[in-house]
């Protein structure tokens, strides 16, 4: 019985924790970018302006939720929910601490990749159902960007799988007792990080919603809480990618004993989120053809070379995970 209660605690803890973290990120990101750009950022509501997160949510709910008459109504409403559902499903396999996990699948890594690949339908259907040229262009860009970056997003993790001998995230964390995979798989880490940013279509890879050329891209016609769901989905994507990177490449919950395991994971996730925000503040957006040729001409060969070298070394040394 206590096991059943425990699993519910983990499920609701994960749901509420990630959702409230996503809400706080709205404020935190603006404040951090402000810091890096030598200005204050939002600092009026509450201590350090943290009330902004709450004010923003209230604003979202209070805004008029307008469905354009020319839009395909049901798809239009359905599209923003896909990203939230698939992102939340992705969190199911993340091990927060030893034994604290919703489910330890032996295909955990593949489950995560499958859920992120389903998230593309949100953007696609949103762009398609709006019947707006900007939305359609944004949706098209998102589809080609996410499908291409997905290819080596999966492939870049296979080096880690080779060294672990399992797709289970718990096994991957346990395999990093002596050495983090960021040291033994630096190329895989580099490619996965870039693919992860592209997959969650964050700046500098936010071409599906590039403001200067596509108005707001796939969510041009969205307002109120439906737009809010896209936004929360994006922040959930950032948290999910950070959690996966921390788990796979930075040893997950592993760390010296003076802090509990969950805190180590939280510190790693927090640092990675800050890095994501720094990227947004520091790097300009590439052109779309630059983005695609970066993917197919640089990232994919790099990933394949990494696989080849890792596989060669594993066979040469007779390494047994």
């Amino acid at each position, binding site marked *: 019985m206590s096991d059943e209660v425990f*699993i519910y605690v983990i499920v609701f803890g994960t749901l509420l924790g990630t959702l409230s973290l996503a809400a706080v990120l709205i404020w935190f990101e603006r404040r951090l970018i402000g810091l890096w750009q030598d200005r204050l950022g939002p600092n009026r509501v509450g201590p350090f302006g943290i009330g902004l997160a709450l004010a923003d949510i209230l604003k979202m709910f209070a805004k008029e939720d307008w469905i354009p008459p*020319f839009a*395909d*109504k*049901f*798809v239009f409403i*359905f599209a923003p929910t896909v990203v939230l*559902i698939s992102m939340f499903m992705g969190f*199911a396999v993340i091990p927060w601490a030893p034994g604290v996990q*919703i*489910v330890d*699948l*032996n*295909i955990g890594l*593949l*489950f995560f*990749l*499958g859920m992120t*690949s*389903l998230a*593309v*339908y949100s953007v*696609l259907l949103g*762009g*398609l*159902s709006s*019947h707006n040229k900007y939305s*359609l262009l944004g*949706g*098209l860009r998102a*589809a*080609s960007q*996410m*499908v291409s970056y*997905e290819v080596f997003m*999966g492939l870049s993790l296979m080096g880690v799988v080779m060294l672990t*001998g*399992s*797709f289970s995230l718990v096994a991957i964390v346990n395999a990093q007792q002596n050495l983090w995979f960021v040291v033994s798989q630096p190329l895989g880490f580099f490619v996965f990080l870039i693919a992860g940013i592209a997959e969650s279509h964050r700046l500098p890879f936010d071409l599906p919603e590039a403001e200067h050329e596509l108005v707001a891209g796939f969510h041009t016609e969205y307002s109120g809480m439906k737009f809010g769901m896209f936004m929360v989905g994006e922040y959930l994507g950032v948290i999910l990618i950070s959690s996966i990177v921390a788990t796979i490449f930075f040893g997950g919950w592993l760390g010296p004993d003076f802090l509990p395991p969950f805190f180590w994971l939280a510190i790693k996730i927090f640092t990675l989120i800050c890095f994501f925000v720094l990227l947004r503040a520091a790097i300009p957006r590439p052109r779309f053809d630059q983005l695609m040729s970066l993917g197919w001409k640089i990232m994919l060969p790099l990933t394949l070379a990494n696989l080849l070298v890792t596989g060669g070394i594993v066979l040469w040394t007779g390494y047994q995970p």
Partner: protein
Amino acid sequence: MSIELFPFYVAATVSLVSTLLAVSRYSPTHALIYFIISLLATAVVFFLLGAPFAAVLEIMVYAGAIVVLFLFVVMMLNLGSRGDELAHQWLKPKMWIMPSILCLILFFELVYVLSGTSTPITGTAVSPKEVGIQLFGPYVLAVEIASMLLLAALVGAYHLGRRYLSDTRGQS
């Protein structure tokens, strides 16, 4: 029919119904939505039969990549104003009631299965490692033939794209 087989029959029924609907729809978009649900249902069937690796590949490769490309083509063809009008006639809101209901059933079933009191069908689960050993052991010839086919398709697509480009350049 024992209660343990219930999820399997539900998933199988959903996949059959959605496949039938995918074939019988006029609009390509609706057909594709039903097709996605059919693939997800098939993935659940795979999972229940003890092949989690095949289930996840079904979601990743078919639902996550191939159908996205189909939708991509549909979006490209809908770009003209006539296509927009046609799409407007085709995309009626009530078309979307069935996919969402089927999706919800699948979703609740997946939650039920993952809550994992017991695996409903007590077949032996095949781990990804065993699949890999089989693929690169007894079935290595089939894998190599498939990879040859893919390489041929890749070279062919590249060739077609090149010729198209050089033709238009020659005319202009």
